[in-house]
C-alpha cells in the first residue's frame, strides 16, 4: 500500500512515529496527526458504513462537522463509539475500528440495504410499523415493538461498552471578564485587545492548537501568537469546546484532558466539564464549508475543499492525485494552487461563468460547469460533469478525488442557544448571526467575513463593543461588512440527476437524500421543524453542520419560497457531543448524592445496626442478633419495647428553634390545633396544613420558655418546613417578631420507649426526681442533666404508644448518651430498635407517617379531625373544606386485617369490593407490618367512606403487581390500646 504522505509539507513531527491499529491491522502515523489524517496517509478510504443503506463512507472534513468518519475508539470498558476521526488526535497504541458494518467496512453484508432504498425512505418506520391497514389496523404498535430491536441493531452507529466507565471526570468552575470562543485571527485579536485593556480573558479553542482555520495555511506558525497571548496573562484552553451558551453569560466547556494520551496518569480526569461565568462573551467560532448534493456525492474520496487544504498543509497528506474541485465561490482557488503545486493534477469546476480569478495557472478552470454524478462504489473512478445545472451536454473526467465547496456557513450555533435567530444573507448565501441585547459579540467568519484582515478588525471591534457594554469605554467602532470575495458566490445546493435509484446526500450521517426531502414535502411536511423530524435531517450528532442549508434550500424550492421564508431549525446545546461521564462528573457511585449520618452513626453500627437509607439519611433499620433475619429481629425489637424498654436513634427528625415574642402567635397560625394555651414545660403534637388545606407535615413543639419553642418535624419534610416558616416570616407576617433557626444538626435525639423507660432514664439522670409521673406527665417537657453533667432536653412523647421519652443532647454528647442509656437498658433486658420495629409499633397504634401523609390527604382523611381547631383561623383553615375535600366518599384512614389471619399483604395493595375488582378500587393499603402484639399481619391505609361504611364487610385486597389477592376486613386504625392507657402510665 502506498502512502499519501508527501515530503516538505505539514506541521507533524516526523521524528516521532506513532503506531496505531485500525480494524485489527497495524499502521503508523506521526505525532501531530489526527486519526483521520493518519488513515488518509495510509491510503485508507473507507472508514465506516452509512446509517441506513450501509454505503461505504470516507472522510468528508477535517473538523467537528464530520458526518462520515465516525469510528469507535478503544476497547472493552474504554470503548468510545461515534468519535469523529477528524478530531481524534493520534497517540501511540490507539485502537480504532469502523462502525455499522459486518464483518468489516470493506465488505459489509448489510450493503444490500443500498438496493432496498425505497424501503428506507423518509418516514419508513412510521409508515411500516404504525399500523398496516387494513389487516393490521390498530396493531401497528405491537408490530413495531416486535421489530424494533432488529431495526435498532441494523440502523444506528457504534455501540457503547455497556460496562462501568473506568475513567474519572471533573466538574470545574471559573470566572472571567471576557471569554473568547475560537482562536482564529478574529478571536486572537479580540483576546489581545481585551487583555491589553486589562480585562481578565479566557480563550477557548476546540483544537489541540491555536490558530483556527489558519492551521490549514502552509506558512502559518502559531508559536509567536501563543507567546504573546501567554505574556498578556490570557488563560488559553485548548482541546476545549464551548458546547453551550446559557443565561447571564454562563458558558459550558468540555475540556478533553487525556483523550489524546496513550497511557494517561490515573490521577487526572479524562475530561473536565467547566462552567464559566463571564461578564461578556465573544464568539469567533468560524464558518463551516458546505458540500453540494448530486448523485453519489458520498463515495469515499469526496471531501470539502478546505479539508484537503488542512490535510496538505497541516498533516503533509495529499488526499488525491487527480483531483476535481467543484465550487460556486472564490474560497477554493488558494487550495487549488497549493494542491497542484504539491503534485496533484487539479481541475476546478466553477458553476459561475463570469469570474475573474488569479491563479498560478497550473490547473484548468471549467467555468459554468457543475458535477452531477460520481462513478464508482468504494472509491471514485470518474466524475460526470455538465455545463450548467440542467445536464444537457455532459462529459466524464477520470479522477480519484472530488472536492466540494458549496459555500460557507458561519457557525451561528452558540447564538442559537441563546434564542437568537439567524438572518439570511443573499449576497453570501448563508445565515448570519443577528445581534443580541445580551453581552455576546460575534467576530470573524462567524459574521460572514472571508478575509483575514477583516477578521482581525472585527476582533478588535468586538472587544471595543464588549468594553462599551461593560461600561469601561465609550469608543466608536465598526465591523467590516460580510463577504470579502472578489466574485460573488452563486447559490448552488443541488445538481439534479433524473436517474432511477440515484442518491444525492443532504445529510451524510443520517443517510438523508434529496429524494427524502422531496418525499416529505409531497406527504405534507412543509414546516422545517416537521421536515427535520420526518426525515431526521440534521438530527445526527453533527446536527447537520454541513447539510442543513442544502435541506432548507430544497424545501424553499419545493415551496416556491426563499430560504429565509422557510426558516431554520434551532440549534441546541451541545455544539459537539458531551459524554455522559462529563455531565455526571464526580457525582457517581457513593458521591451521587450527599450522605447524612447521625452523630451516633458509628455507635449504632458498632452495636450491630443494619442501616437503611431514608432520604439522604442513614438510619438504623434493625439490630439482628446472631442468625436473626430482618423479620425475626424487628418482631423481637418491637415486642421488647412493649414488654420492657427499647432505645431508638431519632436524630434525623427535623429540629427548629423558634424564638421571640411572636412565637406563640406564630405556632398558633401554622398549626391546625391550638397552641395559644400551651404552658411552659409542655409539648404538643401539631399538624401543619398547606395553604390549600392539605396536610403538609406533623410534629411536636415544646415550649421551653415564655418565648422559646423547640419544634420537631418529620425526617422527610424537615427542609421544606424550615423554608416554609422562613417564607411566612419574611413575606407574609413581617410584623411578627420571631426568629427560626434550624438546629437539626445540633441536637442528637433518642427515643426511650416501653414500660421500663422511666426507670432506665431515671438511672441515667443526675436528679432522678425530675421525671416522675407527677413531675413529668404525658407531653411534659423538662431540661435537666444526664449523669456526667450533660445537659439534655426530655419530653414525654410517644410514637410507639408506650410510656416513652424523647431525649436530646448536643450532638457532641451523642455517644455518651447512647452508652449511658444502653448500659441501663440492658439491666431491664431492653433492646436497641430500628426503623422497622418503629414502623411496626406505630402501625399498631395507627400513627401516620409520610406513607399516609402523601400530599393528597386532609386532616379529616387522616382521621385527625380533632386536631383541627374550630376556635381559631390558621393556614389552610379556609381551604380545608373546599369543594372536593368535603365529599363524603373521600378515602379515610382505617386499619386492615387479613380475614384469614394467617395471610399476609403488602403496602400498595388496592382495596376493592368483592366482585368488583378493577381500576383503583375503593382504597389502598399504605403501610403493613406483622404485629407482634396481635400475632398477625396488620395494615394502615385508606378506604372510601372509612370504617363506618365498611366495618363488617368483607373486602378484597388486590395486588396485581405481585399477582396476589386476599380477603380483608376494615378495622379501627388504633389497633392496640385505643385509649392510650400505656402512654399515660
Amino acid at each position, binding site marked *: 500500500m502506498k502512502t499519501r504522505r508527501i515530503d516538505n509539507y505539514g506541521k507533524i513531527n516526523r521524528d516521532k512515529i506513532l503506531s496505531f491499529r485500525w480494524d485489527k491491522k497495524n499502521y503508523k502515523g506521526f505525532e501531530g496527526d489526527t486519526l483521520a489524517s493518519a488513515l488518509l496517509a495510509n491510503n485508507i478510504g473507507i472508514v465506516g458504513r452509512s446509517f441506513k443503506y450501509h454505503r461505504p463512507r470516507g472522510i468528508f472534513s477535517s473538523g467537528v462537522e464530520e458526518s462520515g468518519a465516525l469510528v469507535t475508539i478503544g476497547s472493552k470498558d474504554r470503548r468510545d463509539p461515534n468519535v469523529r476521526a477528524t478530531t481524534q488526535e493520534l497517540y501511540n497504541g490507539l485502537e480504532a475500528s469502523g462502525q455499522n458494518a459486518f464483518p468489516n467496512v470493506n465488505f459489509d453484508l448489510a450493503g444490500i440495504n443500498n438496493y432496498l432504498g425505497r424501503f428506507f425512505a423518509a418516514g419508513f418506520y412510521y409508515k411500516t410499523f404504525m399500523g398496516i391497514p387494513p389487516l393490521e389496523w390498530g396493531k401497528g404498535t405491537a408490530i413495531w415493538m416486535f421489530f424494533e430491536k432488529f431495526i435498532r441493531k441494523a440502523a444506528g452507529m457504534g455501540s457503547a461498552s455497556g460496562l462501568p466507565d473506568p475513567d474519572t471526570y471533573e466538574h470545574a468552575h471559573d470566572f472571567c471578564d471576557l471569554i473568547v470562543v475560537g482562536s482564529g485571527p478574529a478571536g486572537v485579536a479580540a483576546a489581545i485587545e481585551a487583555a491589553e485593556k486589562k480585562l481578565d480573558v479566557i480563550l477557548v479553542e476546540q483544537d489541540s492548537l491555536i490558530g483556527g482555520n489558519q492551521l490549514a495555511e502552509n506558512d502559518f506558525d502559531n508559536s509567536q501568537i501563543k507567546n504573546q497571548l501567554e505574556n498578556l496573562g490570557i488563560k488559553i484552553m485548548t482541546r476545549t469546546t464551548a458546547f453551550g451558551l*446559557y*443565561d*447571564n453569560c*454562563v458558558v459550558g466547556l468540555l475540556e478533553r484532558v487525556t483523550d489524546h494520551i496513550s497511557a494517561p496518569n490515573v490521577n487526572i480526569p479524562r475530561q473536565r466539564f467547566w*462552567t464559566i*461565568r463571564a461578564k461578556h462573551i465573544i464568539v469567533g467560532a468560524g464558518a463551516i464549508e458546505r458540500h453540494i448534493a448530486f448523485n453519489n456525492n458520498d463515495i469515499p474520496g469526496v471531501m470539502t475543499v478546505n479539508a484537503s487544504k488542512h490535510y496538505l498543509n497541516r498533516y503533509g497528506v495529499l488526499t488525491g492525485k487527480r483531483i476535481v474541485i467543484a465550487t460556486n465561490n472564490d474560497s477554493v482557488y488558494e487550495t487549488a494552487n497549493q494542491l497542484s503545486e504539491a503534485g496533484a493534477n487539479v481541475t476546478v469546476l466553477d458553476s459561475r461563468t463570469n469570474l475573474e480569478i488569479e491563479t498560478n495557472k497550473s490547473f484548468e478552470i471549467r467555468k459554468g460547469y457543475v458535477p452531477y454524478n460520481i462513478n464508482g462504489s468504494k472509491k471514485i473512478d470518474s466524475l460526470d460533469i455538465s455545463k450548467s445545472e440542467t445536464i444537457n451536454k455532459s462529459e466524464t473526467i477520470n479522477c480519484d478525488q472530488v472536492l466540494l465547496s458549496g459555500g460557507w456557513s458561519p457557525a451561528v450555533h452558540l447564538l442559537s442557544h441563546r*434564542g437568537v435567530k439567524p438572518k439570511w444573507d443573499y449576497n453570501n448565501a448563508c445565515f448570519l448571526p443577528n445581534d443580541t*441585547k*445580551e453581552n455576546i459579540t460575534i467576530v470573524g467568519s462567524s459574521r460572514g467575513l472571508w478575509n483575514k484582515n477583516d477578521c482581525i478588525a472585527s476582533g478588535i471591534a468586538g472587544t471595543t463593543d464588549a468594553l462599551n457594554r461593560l461600561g469601561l469605554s465609550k469608543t466608536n467602532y465598526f465591523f467590516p461588512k460580510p463577504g470579502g470575495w472578489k466574485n460573488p458566490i452563486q447559490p448552488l445546493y443541488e445538481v439534479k440527476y433524473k436517474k432511477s435509484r440515484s442518491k444525492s446526500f443532504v445529510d451524510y450521517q443520517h443517510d438523508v437524500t434529496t429524494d427524502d426531502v422531496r418525499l416529505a414535502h409531497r406527504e405534507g411536511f412543509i414546516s422545517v421543524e416537521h421536515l427535520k423530524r420526518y426525515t431526521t435531517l440534521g438530527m445526527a450528532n453533527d446536527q447537520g453542520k454541513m447539510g442543513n442549508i442544502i435541506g432548507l434550500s430544497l424545501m424553499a424550492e419545493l415551496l416556491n419560497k426563499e430560504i429565509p421564508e422557510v426558516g431554520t431549525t434551532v440549534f441546541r446545546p451541545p455544539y459537539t457531543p458531551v459524554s455522559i461521564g462529563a455531565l455526571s462528573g464526580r457525582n457517581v457511585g457513593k458521591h451521587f448524592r450527599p450522605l447524612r449520618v447521625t452523630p451516633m452513626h458509628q455507635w449504632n453500627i458498632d452495636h450491630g445496626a443494619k442501616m437503611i437509607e431514608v432520604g439522604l439519611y442513614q438510619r438504623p433499620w434493625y439490630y439482628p442478633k446472631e442468625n436473626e433475619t430482618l423479620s425475626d429481629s424487628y418482631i423481637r425489637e418491637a415486642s421488647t419495647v412493649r414488654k420492657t424498654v427499647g432505645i431508638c436513634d431519632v436524630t434525623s427528625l427535623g429540629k427548629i428553634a423558634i424564638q421571640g415574642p411572636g412565637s406563640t402567635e406564630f405556632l398558633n*397560625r401554622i398549626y391546625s390545633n391550638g397552641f395559644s394555651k400551651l404552658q411552659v414545660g409542655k409539648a404538643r403534637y401539631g399538624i401543619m396544613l398547606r*395553604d*390549600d388545606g392539605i396536610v403538609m407535615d406533623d410534629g411536636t413543639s415544646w415550649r421551653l420558655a415564655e418565648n422559646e419553642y423547640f419544634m420537631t418535624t418529620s425526617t422527610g419534610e424537615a*427542609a421544606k418546613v424550615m*423554608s416554609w416558616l*422562613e*417564607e411566612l416570616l*419574611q*413575606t*407574609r407576617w*413581617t410584623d411578627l417578631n420571631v426568629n427560626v433557626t434550624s438546629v437539626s444538626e445540633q441536637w442528637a435525639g433518642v427515643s426511650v420507649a416501653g414500660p421500663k423507660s422511666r426507670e432506665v432514664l431515671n438511672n441515667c439522670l443526675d436528679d432522678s426526681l425530675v421525671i416522675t409521673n407527677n413531675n413529668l406527665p404525658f407531653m411534659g417537657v423538662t431540661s435537666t442533666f444526664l449523669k456526667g453533667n450533660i445537659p439534655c432536653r426530655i419530653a414525654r412523647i410517644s410514637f410507639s404508644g408506650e410510656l416513652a421519652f424523647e431525649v436530646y443532647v448536643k450532638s457532641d454528647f451523642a455517644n455518651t448518651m447512647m452508652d449511658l442509656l444502653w448500659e441501663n437498658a440492658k439491666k431491664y433486658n431492653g433492646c436497641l430498635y430500628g426503623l422497622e420495629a418503629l414502623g411496626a409499633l406505630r402501625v399498631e397504634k395507627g400513627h401516620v407517617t409520610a406513607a399516609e401523609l402523601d400530599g393528597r390527604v386532609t386532616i379529616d382523611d387522616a382521621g385527625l379531625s380533632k386536631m383541627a381547631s374550630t376556635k381559631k*383561623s*390558621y*393556614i389552610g*383553615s*379556609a*381551604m380545608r*373544606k*373546599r369543594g372536593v375535600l368535603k365529599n363524603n366518599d373521600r378515602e379515610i384512614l382505617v386499619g386492615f386485617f387479613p380475614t384469614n389471619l394467617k395471610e399476609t399483604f403488602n403496602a400498595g395493595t388496592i382495596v376493592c369490593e368483592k366482585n368488583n375488582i378493577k381500576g383503583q378500587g375503593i382504597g389502598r393499603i399504605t403501610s403493613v407490618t406483622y404485629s407482634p402484639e396481635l400475632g398477625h399481619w396488620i395494615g394502615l391505609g385508606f378506604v372510601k367512606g372509612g370504617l363506618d361504611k365498611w366495618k363488617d364487610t368483607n373486602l378484597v385486597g388486590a395486588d396485581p403487581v405481585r399477582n396476589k389477592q386476599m380477603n380483608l376486613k376494615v378495622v379501627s386504625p388504633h389497633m392496640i390500646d385505643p385509649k392510650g392507657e400505656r402512654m399515660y402510665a
Partner: protein
Amino acid sequence: MIRINCPYCGERDHSEFSYGGDATINYPSLDASEKDWTEAIFFRKNIKGFQFETWHHSNGCRMWLVVERSTVTHEIKSVKPCHPDLQKVVENNK
C-alpha cells in the same frame, strides 16, 4: 444558568436558590373566605415579560428575595429582600 445578585451574598448561580412563586400576591387574612383564598392561591397571571417572583436563597443566606425577572429572556432587573424592613436596610446601605 441564571445568576441572581443576592443583596446579602452577591451574585450567585440560580442552583443555590429555590424558586418560590408570584411575589405580588396579597395573601388574605387567615379568616378570609374560601373564595378569597382560592383567588390567592390558584389564580395566576401567565406573564410574558418581567414579573416579580420570590426566590429563597436556600443554599446561601436563607433569605427570601423578590426578583424581577423576564420570563422570556431571564434578564433580571432587580433583587430585593422580601421583608420590607430589610428592604429599607439594604436600600440605606447602598
